[in-house]
C-alpha cells in the first residue's frame, strides 16, 4: 500500500502529550509508523495544524427518525442549496438533516473520520445500517436503545442480571450495535400511559420499576459484559427548568461502580448532551443555569464522562428517542410534530426548532453549554457535540470551537442579543475569561471521545500503530493565535484528510469516498436458555416481525463490518 509523509505541521495529540510541536507523521499500510521510505507521497503541512481524525461520540445521522426528519422538513432544504455531483462526490443537500452524502462530505471537511449514531431503535436497526452503509468515508457505529425495552424492564425489575446481560449481548449481535444507549429511562414507556418519569424515582406504570433501577442495572450489565463503551445515558426530564437535580441524581447512581474492560476506557457512565440537563429555576420565567453545579460534580467524579450538546443558535430539527419530550416541545413552539412508538422497545419524536439569539431562553441555553465546557477540568471527559441536529447541526462545530477559544467572540455575540442583560444574569458565562487551547479542543473532539468509546487503540491519536486517520487544517497556531474568524473557517475546511492511510481530501478537494467500516460488538456470554425462550415468546406474541426478519445480516446491510469481540463468559 501507499506510504504518506505529512511534513512540518504543528501536531496536537493529547494521547502523546504533543502540544503543537513541529513533527512529521508517517503512514504506511493504513497505520501510523515511525518512518517511511523516500518514495512516500509527501504532504507539506508547513504552517498548518495536524490532528488525528475527529471522533464524534454522539450524533444523529442515520436511521428511521433522521429519515422522517428529512421527509417532513422539505423547508430544511431551503437553508442549504443542493450541490450537484462533482468528481467523486454525489449530489448532496439538506441543512439540519442532510443527506447521507452531505453528512459524510461535511464531516470530512471538519476533519472527522469516525462518527457514532447515538440512537438506534433495535427494530429499525436494518434501516439505520442501510443508511450507514450508504454514508461514504466515515467509520460508524450505532448504539441501540435499551432504557424502555420491555425485556430490560422485566429482567431488571426481577433483578435477573444474568438474563439482562445475556439479552443485551443477543440484541447487540442481532442489531449489530456497538453499546448500550438509554434514553429517558422508563419515561418513554410511561408515556404509553400518558405519563412520564421526571425524576429517577418515578415508577414506570405496569412494570413498577424506577429509572434509578434501570440506570443502575444497565451500568452493571455494561461492566459485566466488559463492553468497549460505557452505558450512554440521556437522562430523565430533559430540557425542563429545574432538571439539574434529576441529572445529579442520575450521575450519582454511578458512584462507587468500577470499570471492567480491556479497552482503556475509564468511565462507567457517559451522560450525553449534558447542557440540556443542567437547568435551574422552576418555570421558563426564572429559568437559569445550573451548569457549574453539574460540571463541578463531573469534575470530581472520574468515572463519568459527558458530551455537551452546544446550542448553536440556528434553525434546526430536534429528534430524539425521548417521545414525551418532543410532545412537550411541540406544545411549546406549536410547530409540526412526528412521533413513533417502536413496539416493545422504545419510541421517538421530531419537532423543528428555531434557536433564536433574541429569545432569552435560547441565549441562556447557548451560555450554559459554553459555560460548562469552560468550567470542565478534564476535557478528556468533556466532549464537543451539538447532539446534531438537536442543539444545532454538526456543521457548526468550528463555530463552537471559535466561541470556546475566543472570549471576544462570545462577548460580541452576547452583545447583539436582544435580552443581553437577562442572558448574562442567568449564567456565569460572562465572568469566565478562559479560552481553550487547540490541545484541549483535540481532547474534546478526538482523544477523549475515542477513549470513552474504547477505541483508543485504533483512533483519536497519532501514536505509532494507530489507524492512520489524520486531518490537516489551514491554521497556523504561531501566527493565527486565536483569531476568531480564522478558527471558524479553518476547522471547517480541512486541507488534507487521511483515513485508514487513504487520502480522502487532497488540497481541499474530496478525492475519494474512502473505504468506510462499521463497528459492532460481539459479546460471548454463557448460554442462557431462559432468555432464548423469552425472545422467541416475545416475537411470537408481540412483535410485528419475525426473528429472522429482525436480524441485521452483515453481508446484506453493512459495509466492511468490523467486529470487536469480547468474551464475557465467566
Amino acid at each position, binding site marked *: 500500500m501507499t506510504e504518506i509523509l505529512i511534513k512540518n505541521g504543528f501536531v496536537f495529540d493529547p494521547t502523546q502529550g504533543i502540544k503543537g510541536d513541529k513533527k512529521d507523521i508517517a503512514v504506511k499500510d493504513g497505520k501510523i509508523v515511525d518512518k517511511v521510505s523516500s518514495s512516500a507521497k509527501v504532504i507539506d503541512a508547513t504552517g498548518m495544524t495536524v490532528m488525528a481524525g475527529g471522533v464524534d461520540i454522539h450524533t444523529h445521522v442515520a436511521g428511521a427518525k433522521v429519515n422522517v426528519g428529512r421527509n*417532513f*422538513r*422539505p*423547508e*430544511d432544504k*431551503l437553508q442549504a442549496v443542493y450541490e450537484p455531483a462533482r468528481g467523486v462526490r454525489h449530489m448532496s443537500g439538506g441543512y439540519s438533516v442532510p443527506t447521507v452524502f452531505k453528512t459524510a462530505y461535511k464531516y470530512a471537511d471538519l476533519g472527522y473520520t469516525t462518527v457514532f449514531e447515538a440512537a438506534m431503535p433495535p427494530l429499525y436497526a436494518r434501516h439505520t445500517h442501510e443508511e450507514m452503509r450508504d454514508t461514504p468515508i466515515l467509520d460508524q457505529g450505532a448504539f441501540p436503545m435499551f432504557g424502555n425495552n420491555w425485556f430490560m424492564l422485566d429482567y431488571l425489575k426481577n433483578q435477573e442480571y444474568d438474563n439482562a446481560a445475556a439479552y443485551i449481548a443477543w440484541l447487540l449481535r442481532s442489531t449489530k450495535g456497538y453499546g448500550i444507549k438509554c434514553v429517558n429511562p422508563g419515561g418513554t414507556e410511561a408515556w404509553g400511559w400518558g405519563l412520564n418519569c421526571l425524576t429517577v424515582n418515578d415508577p414506570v406504570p405496569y412494570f413498577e420499576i424506577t429509572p434509578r433501577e434501570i440506570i443502575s442495572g444497565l451500568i452493571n450489565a455494561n461492566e459485566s459484559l466488559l463492553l468497549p463503551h460505557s452505558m450512554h445515558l440521556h437522562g430523565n426530564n430533559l430540557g425542563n427548568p429545574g432538571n439539574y437535580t434529576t441529572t445529579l441524581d442520575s450521575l450519582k447512581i454511578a458512584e462507587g461502580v468500577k470499570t471492567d474492560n480491556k479497552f482503556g476506557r475509564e468511565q462507567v457512565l457517559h451522560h450525553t448532551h449534558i447542557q440540556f440537563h443542567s437547568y435551574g429555576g422552576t418555570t421558563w420565567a426564572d429559568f437559569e443555569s445550573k451548569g457549574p453545579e453539574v460540571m463541578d460534580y463531573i469534575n470530581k467524579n472520574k468515572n463519568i464522562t459527558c458530551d455537551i450538546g452546544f446550542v448553536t443558535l440556528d434553525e434546526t430539527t430536534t429528534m430524539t428517542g425521548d417521545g414525551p419530550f418532543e410532545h412537550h416541545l411541540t406544545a411549546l413552539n*406549536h*410547530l*409540526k410534530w412526528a412521533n413513533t412508538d417502536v413496539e416493545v422497545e422504545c419510541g421517538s419524536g421530531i419537532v*423543528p426548532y428555531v434557536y433564536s439569539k433574541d429569545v432569552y431562553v435560547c441565549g441562556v441555553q447557548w451560555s450554559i453549554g459554553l459555560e460548562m465546557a469552560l468550567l470542565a477540568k478534564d476535557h478528556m471527559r468533556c466532549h464537543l457535540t451539538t447532539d446534531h441536529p438537536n442543539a444545532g447541526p454538526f456543521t457548526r462545530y468550528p463555530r463552537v470551537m471559535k466561541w470556546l477559544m475566543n472570549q471576544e467572540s462570545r462577548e460580541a455575540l452576547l452583545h447583539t442579543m436582544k435580552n443581553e442583560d437577562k442572558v448574562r444574569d442567568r449564567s456565569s458565562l460572562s465572568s469566565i475569561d478562559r479560552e481553550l487551547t487547540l490541545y484541549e479542543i483535540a481532547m474534546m473532539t478526538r482523544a477523549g471521545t475515542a477513549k470513552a468509546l474504547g477505541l483508543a487503540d485504533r483512533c483519536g491519536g497519532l501514536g505509532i500503530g494507530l489507524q492512520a486517520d489524520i486531518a490537516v487544517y489551514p491554521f497556523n497556531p504561531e501566527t493565527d493565535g486565536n483569531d476568531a474568524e480564522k478558527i471558524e473557517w479553518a476547522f471547517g475546511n480541512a486541507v488534507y484528510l487521511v483515513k485508514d492511510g487513504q487520502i480522502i481530501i487532497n488540497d481541499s478537494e474530496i478525492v475519494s469516498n474512502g473505504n468506510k467500516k462499521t463497528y459492532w460488538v460481539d459479546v460471548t456470554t454463557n448460554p442462557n436458555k431462559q432468555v432464548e425462550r423469552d425472545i422467541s415468546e416475545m416475537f411470537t406474541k408481540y412483535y410485528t416481525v419475525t426473528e429472522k426478519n429482525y436480524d441485521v445480516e452483515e453481508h446484506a446491510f453493512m459495509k466492511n463490518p468490523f467486529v470487536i469481540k469480547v468474551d464475557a463468559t465467566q
Partner: protein
Amino acid sequence: MNTVTITITKQPELFIEAECFSPDALAGKSADAISKLPIYIGKTTETVGDYFAVDGNAGATAAETKLVIKGDTSRVKYIGSKMTAGEVVINGNADMYVGNFMSGGKITAKGNIGHFAATSMSGGEIIVEGNAGNYLAASYRGDWRGMSGGKITVLGNVGSDCATFITGGEIVIGGNVDVHVMTHADGGKVIIKGNAKSRLGGQASRGEIYLFGTVDVMMPGYAYSEDVELEVAGTKAKFAVYNGDLGERHPTRKGQPIYAKLYLKK
C-alpha cells in the same frame, strides 16, 4: 427607469426555469450580457439568448429596472422570483413560481399565472389580470411561515390552497376561489368577491376572510358572533361575522381570545 424587453422567440419542448427573470438578477447588465445568462430546461443549461430576444439595458439597480416579457410565456417558470425592487410586466401567461419569495417591487401579469405564485411573499405588489393557479401565496412546502406582507390582486379566479400559513399582507380575488383558503393562517387578509367552495380558514388562529359571494360548505369550527356594516375593497355592505377556527389554540389580548374572522356578505 430602464426597460428591458424580453420576447420569446422559440417555445421549449419542456419548461424553462428562468430564475434570472427578475430586476435583481438583471440589474447592471447590458442586453448582451442578459442574453448570455443561464436558464434551465430539464437537466440542461442553456442561455436566455437561445430562447428569447433581449432589447434594452437594465438599470444600475433593481429599483431602476423594468422588465417587460412579451409573447407566450406559459412554459416559463420563476418570473420575478426573489425580486426585491423594480417592476416586471408579463404580457402573456406565465407558469409556476411567479414572484415567489418576493420582498418588494411590482409584478403585473396580463394573462394567467401558474401554481405556487408568491410563495412566502413578504412585500411588494402583484396584479394578475387573468387567473392564478393553486397555492397562491402559500408557504413553501412544509414551512410554517407563509406570506407575511405585500398585496396581491387577482381579477380572475384562484385555485385551491390560497394563502396557506399566511401571517400578514392582503389578497383580493375578483373571481371565484377553490377549496382551502387561509389554512393555518395566523394573520393577513383575503377578500373574495366571487364564490368560494369550502374550508375557508381551516385551522386558522388569526386573520380575516371577506366573502361577497356564496360558500358551498361552511367550516364546522366557526361560530356566528354578530352582524357588522363595513366598507371592504370599495364596497359598503353588511356582513355576518363568524369566529374560528374553534378547534385551534388562540392567542389572547387583554384576557380575550383572538379569533380568525370570517365575514360573509348578507
